[in-house]
């Protein structure tokens, strides 16, 4: 144990003092925060100073005779968009809301009648108008309208059609025929608030908010685990590849066993990687947590997710180290270890099923396949619908898989450490595993 500790401490100390490590650890999040702050500031500034959308005039050629109202104002059209972004119960970020909605300032349309389509089209051509609308004589039967515009649309804006056109049409068609409040409801039939029966027998706020609250913690740990697998594993592979390139392995192996070296490296380099993740998390999470203080984080969820994270890291780290040791340099090691990175992201393809149906067959199957257990179970546990025995069993499965993978990796590590200049074949790896 003492030797494992010494190897781990050495690996950790050497890694965290590398200039590259320090730059990435502290430089990257500060750079990212800087970029985010600048872009957010610029966005807010742009939203505040934004000129209201060009509200007309629109040339109108009405052959149906149904559209007499030439002025139209619609308040809060973007409210629905904001509602979708911030479900009920989730505090709204004013800055983001501002960035969302030009409709916060309302939509105003003004129409100028033209006697013919040709006259309106000519006015658009001469730049007297930006746009013109032709309502066909058989509009009531066919609904046909033609919209002429100087502006090209983009993938985000459908042919430049002005927002509010639908409301204007409804208002014109129903004006004087119905109560204005009914007209308003026809334009926007409902603003739906969803209440879902919770475990305490209460109808709680909407499912959207519930999901956001419920899944925030597992999402954070999921993200950390993937970052650990893809990022920290780089240090593991780099460490072992450098030792092979420097021919240090055999010198070390005269003092420690291959197993001790493997575990020591896993702990030391893993700790360096986790320290990096922690720094990133602290720098990133502190400002974000201030904004998302409404998240009700359950301690048991945090604890269980943390345990799945640690188990998952040891499983993937051990496998990558064992297979990575078979390469002659970092590039070869990374190629040999990439299969495990790929395995780690399998649950991401099934995330909608896991989140919406945590007790489905797919979710359960992925829960007990060791390579997909950590991420699947984090998401399932947060749903609150997973039986305790499943949680316990998943940890047993993970522990057994870690034991098997460390044994197998140690075998490969022992062979790989002394393997120079030769890339092993799959049958060779298979034979070494069973030797």
């Amino acid at each position: 144990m003492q030797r494992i500790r010494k190897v781990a401490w050495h690996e950790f100390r050497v890694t965290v003092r590398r200039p590259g490590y320090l730059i990435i650890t502290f430089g990257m999040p500060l750079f990212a925060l800087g970029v985010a702050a600048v872009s957010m500031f610029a966005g807010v500034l742009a939203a505040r100073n934004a000129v209201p959308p060009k509200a007309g005039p629109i040339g109108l050629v009405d052959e149906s005779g149904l559209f007499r109202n030439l002025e139209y104002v619609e308040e809060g059209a973007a409210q629905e968009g904001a509602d979708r972004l911030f479900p009920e119960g989730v505090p709204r970020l004013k800055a983001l809301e501002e960035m969302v909605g030009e409709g916060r300032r309302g939509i105003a349309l003004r129409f100028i009648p033209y006697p013919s389509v040709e006259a309106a089209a000519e006015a658009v051509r001469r730049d007297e108008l930006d746009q013109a609308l032709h309502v066909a004589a058989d509009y009531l039967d066919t609904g046909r309208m033609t919209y002429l515009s100087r502006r090209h649309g983009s993938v985000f804006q459908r042919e430049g059609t002005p927002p509010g056109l639908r409301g204007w049409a409804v208002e014109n068609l129903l004006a004087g025929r119905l109560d204005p409040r009914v007209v308003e409801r026809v334009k926007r039939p409902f603003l739906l608030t969803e209440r879902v029966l919770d475990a305490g027998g209460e109808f709680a706020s909407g499912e959207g908010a519930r999901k956001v609250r419920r899944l925030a913690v597992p999402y954070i740990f999921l993200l950390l685990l993937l970052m650990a697998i893809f990022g920290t594993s780089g240090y593991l592979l780099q460490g072992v590849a450098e030792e092979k390139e420097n021919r240090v392995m055999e010198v070390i192996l005269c003092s420690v066993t291959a197993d001790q070296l493997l575990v020591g490296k896993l702990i030391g380099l893993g700790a360096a990687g986790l320290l990096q993740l922690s720094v990133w998390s602290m720098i990133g999470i502190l400002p974000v947590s201030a904004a998302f203080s409404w998240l009700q984080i359950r301690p048991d969820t945090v604890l269980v997710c943390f345990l799945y994270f640690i188990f998952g890291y040891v499983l993937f780290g051990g496998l990558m180290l064992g297979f990575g040791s078979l390469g002659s340099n970092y590039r070869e090691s990374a190629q040999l270890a990439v299969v495990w990175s790929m395995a780690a992201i399998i649950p991401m393809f099934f995330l909608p099923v896991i989140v919406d149906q945590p007790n489905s067959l797919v979710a359960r199957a992925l829960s007990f396949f060791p390579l997909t257990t950590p991420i699947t179970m984090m998401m399932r546990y947060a749903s609150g619908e997973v039986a305790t025995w499943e949680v316990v069993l998943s940890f047993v499965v993970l522990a057994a898989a870690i034991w098997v993978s460390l044994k197998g990796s140690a075998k490969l590590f022992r062979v790989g450490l002394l393997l120079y200049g030769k890339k092993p074949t799959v049958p060779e790896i298979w034979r070494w595993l069973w030797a």
Partner: protein
Amino acid sequence: MSILSVRSVTKVFDGKRAVQGLSLEVGPGEIFGLLGPNGAGKTTLLRMVMDILKPDEGTISIFGRPLDPAGKDRIGYLPEERGLYQRVRVGELLQYLAELKGLAPAAARARIERGLRRVDLGDAAGKKVRELSKGMQQKVQLVATLLPEPDLLILDEPFSGLDPVNRLLALELLEERVRAGSSLVLSTHILEQAEALCERVLLVNGGRALLEGRVRDLKEQRGEGAVLLTHADELPAVEGALRVTPLGVGPDGRRSKVHLRPGTPPDRFLAEVLHAGARVTHFERALPTLNEIFIAAVREDGPAGPSAAPPAVLSPHAAHAATPPSPPLAS
């Protein structure tokens, strides 16, 4: 009690026997040579001794029992494939290696300082390894090997990459250690070094043992029955002489190698030649070198098995001593 005991050890890689039933014993304070050409199985055997590889057959015991962590701490091992962490400072690296060998931090620091001074690298502790020349790095490796003041030193090609001055320094360090009571196992393909240093040797080829014993005994046994003489005039013909090979003229007179007729003892030949009137100023038995013995042993071993091929050229001198040039062995 043997310090190192290897009994009938075999190691197979992918169906090929790298080591076949090798046995050896190394006693306290002994310098033992494990000799053979590249690819003979020496490094594989040493890796099994160090428990880096597991033998397929046979047993290995060190200090009277199978190798355990405490036993490892008493061994200084310098592998053939050796290197150092390049980005680490020399002092830190040696401290790490010493502590891995079970040394207390304070004791390790004192030994590191002493060891670096001993190899003229007293100011290198604060430098990064990559800032040192290759020769300096070799010396650091030697210091690292000797730091635990091991009871058993296992050195695989220890002098490769060292210039003559540093080779002499390395020899001095090893001799100091042996004088302090350590046993030394020296693996090399340069037989002249072994001949000068080792008391006993094991000659291996193709993973098999060819010869084992005291160097002096092997030379005596393998002596071809020849003597070297320095004399004033032509040598008279005597019954015991089979063939005379002139070796040239030196300041003390003519030098000749005389191959004796089988069964003729050297002293009887000397008596015959003196009786015949020759004036002899120097006389000695012409013993074969280890290199010559090794080549002869390989040839006697016959054409069967992987060891049938003649050995690789063992040293620059061997290239001249060995008669026809031999193809190198596959590693």
